Each structure stands twice: as structure tokens, then as C-alpha cells.
């Protein structure tokens, strides 16, 4: 049997309706996509405020000389928040 990678979470229907209104013409294809995006963003924020990760020290991407370690961390966090990493 395949391992299920997603779970169902119940939210109040009025809140769901509000989400439906918010995502109209927003580019999110469903309330679920929007809610996953928001949760990832919030959890990412919480992680940022937590202890600095060990990997923070150095990881060169070298796109140009102006790109700092702080910038790199912000990019990694965005990629995590968007579900790419």
C-alpha cells in the first residue's frame, strides 16, 4: 500500500469561504494551495527566529560579488517557504 503523503485538516466553513474570496485572481489555484503557502510562510518565519542553523556559515552560490551570506539565507528561506526545498 502506498504511503499517504497528505492529510486532511478541517477548518470552519466561513473561514474557507473567506479564503476563496481572497484567492480570486491571486494565482493560487485552490484554497488548499493558499493555505499551504501561508502555513509554510508562517512556519518559515518561526524557524528564522529560532536558533541559527549549522549550515548558515558558508555556502557559496557566487552569483555576484554583492551577494552576502545573509542574502543567501533569505533566498533559501524563500525557497523553503514556497515548497521548492
Amino acid at each position, binding site marked *: 500500500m502506498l504511503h499517504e503523503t497528505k492529510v486532511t485538516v478541517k477548518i470552519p466553513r466561513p473561514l474557507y469561504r473567506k479564503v476563496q474570496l481572497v484567492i480570486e485572481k491571486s494565482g493560487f489555484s485552490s484554497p488548499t494551495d493558499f493555505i499551504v503557502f501561508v502555513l509554510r510562510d508562517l512556519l518559515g518565519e518561526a524557524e528564522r527566529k529560532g536558533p541559527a542553523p549549522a549550515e548558515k556559515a558558508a555556502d557559496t*552560490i557566487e552569483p555576484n560579488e554583492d551577494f552576502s551570506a545573509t542574502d543567501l539565507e533569505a533566498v533559501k528561506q524563500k525557497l523553503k517557504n514556497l515548497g521548492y526545498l
Partner: protein
Amino acid sequence: MIAPHGGRLINRVVEGAERDRLLGLAPKLPKVVLNAREMADVDMIAVGAMSPLEGFMTKADYDSVLARRRLAGGLPWTIPIVLAVKPDASAESYKEGQDVALETQDGQLLAILHVASKWKMDKGDEARKVLRTDDAAHPGVGYLATLGDTYLGGTLSVVNRLKYEKYNNRRLDPVETRTLFKQKGWKTIAAFQTRNPIHRAHEYLTKVALEIVDGLMLHPLMGETKSDDVPADVRMKCYEALLASYYPKERTALAVYPQAMRYGGPSEAVLHAICRKNFGVTHFLVGRDHAGVGKYYGSYDAQKIFDEYAPGEIGINLLKFENSFWCKRTGGMASTKSSPAGPEERVELSGTQVRDMLRAGTLPPPEFSRPEIAKILIDAMKAK
């Protein structure tokens, strides 16, 4: 990591005191209200997606691109990236050496253009050299007709990034895609450019690419397209559905390519390849009639143009594909390169046939289109 075109990823976004200074200056400057193509160009230049460009082309670069498909410094480049004075504005309002505020159509300041060059262009000459036609029915020629006849060139200082209404969760700058590839451990990355829904034939090309590289970036063009192209919203649904069911999640990424279509066929294929290199892509797929429209280009002109450059000059590996199809004899996807079958043994449908089927609510054969994709397209046609 592959080097950007010209060796350095350009960053024209200004911050801090310099940004404050320019914001204070902007209201006193002459302005140009940008069209959709120009707005996307500004945003791509800002983050290095069109490196080594640091702004709209000057006359030297423009003339060089038209004459020899290279920037004035010698780097390959095939499409002018230019800013035109609007037809209803006086070209006399703008002077070389002057700063000009560039605004969106709803009055948002995007950037300051430091005008280094101003010149009168010849629309017919540009069309013939870049688009290989001056036929008014070609959408690129039609676009030129909407412009004024004076170009302004110079570097940009971008004070505000363009705010997009859609797909913000799919928009990655070059520095972000490069970081993504690094974090994923992908050393070789293929990018697939498309402005259409992906059916089995194009899926096959991406799968072939995926067999030889570490990762695949589906990089659909979501900038301005012709009004009769499939709408971006519908296409995005198709891409998401296809990736969800038919690709390995850990080896694929979907991100928006924000440039506007030029319909420049071969010229545009080179531009697409160069820009993907800036995003960190190492392999670029070029199929039949890439970026073409109508019958203006030969089926493989967009592959042949790369032969005009010395090996390594473009700097990205080209994956050239011929027309692909479901082959009844071999029982799989194939192309004329890999199957001995004749046309009668291929499952191929013309664009018109597919549109007619979808309009009638009929699913094309699964050998042509995944049913999930066909259903999205049928629903979109019903909703029209």
C-alpha cells in the same frame, strides 16, 4: 555552477540612500509609461535574467545586434531589448545625459533610466533583420507598429520591483533558481520553454532530457502572448497537473519565465537560451519551430541559428529535438530520429484538430494528451 552570460550576474536593484535619492528625484523627471513587454524587460534586467544587459540597449548595441547578432562588445545576442518613446509623446522631451522615470501603466515608479543614447529607428529594418519578415500580420511586426520611432537606451536603476498579480509562488529570480539548483545538488539542469499546454510529445522531450541531466526546470513563458494563445491561468493548471502525476517531484521544478513573447523564431530561441543560462540552466531544449508563429520560419531554423556561433560562445548545451509522436509500431513515444515508422503509424494531431476535439468536449487519444490535461483544456473552453 554555469557562469551567467558575460560572466557576472547583473543586479540593477538599488537600495538604501541611493534608492531614497532617486525616489526624491523621480517626480521632477520626464517619464515614460511602460507597456507590458517593457515592464517585464525592466524586471528581468533588474535581477540579471538578461545579463550582461544593465539597461535598455544603446544605439551601439542595437546596431550591432541587428547587423551581426552580437552586442557591441561581441557577446552573442539576437533580439533588441529596447525602450521606445510612446507615439503620443514628443521625442524632443527626452535628451541624452538625462534621467527618465519609468512607470507602470497604473503609475507605479519602477526605475530610473540614465539615458545614454537616443536614436530614430527604422521599424522595417528591425523587423526584417530580427523577425525575418516585415509582414504586418506577424505579431512581432504588429507590435513594432504600435511603438513610436525613437528609442532611448541606457543603464537602469530599479527602485521598485514589478508587482505581479499572479503566480507569485512560482516566481524565482536567477539568484533563486541558482540557489535552488545548488541546494538540490543538481549540477546539470535542463530547462523547457513553452507557451502552450504540454501534451505527450513535449512531455517526451522533457523526459528524454531528464534521462541525462540531474534536474528539469519547467520554465513556461508567462509574459505577454498573443490573444489566441492558451491563457496563462489554464496553462499553469496544466503544468501543475502534469508535474503532479507524471514527473518525479524531487527532480523537477516549475517556475515562471516572465518575458513577453516576440514570436521571433530563431532569434528568440537564442535569447531564450541565453536568459536560461543566467538562471543557472546548463541544458536548453529546442524543438521544432521554437518561438515560431504561422509559416514564417522553417521547422528547424531555431536550431540552425546556433551554428552561427563558435562552440561555447552561447555557453549552454543545446538539446535539439525533432518532431515527436506516439509510434504505433514501436509502442512508445518516438521521433523521426528514433523510429522507422512512417506517418501512417504515428498518432499526431494538428493544432486545429485538437482544438476542434476539445471544443466538442472530446478527449484526444491518451497517446496524444494526458487525460488530466485534456480535461483542464475542455473545461476552459466550456467556461469561455
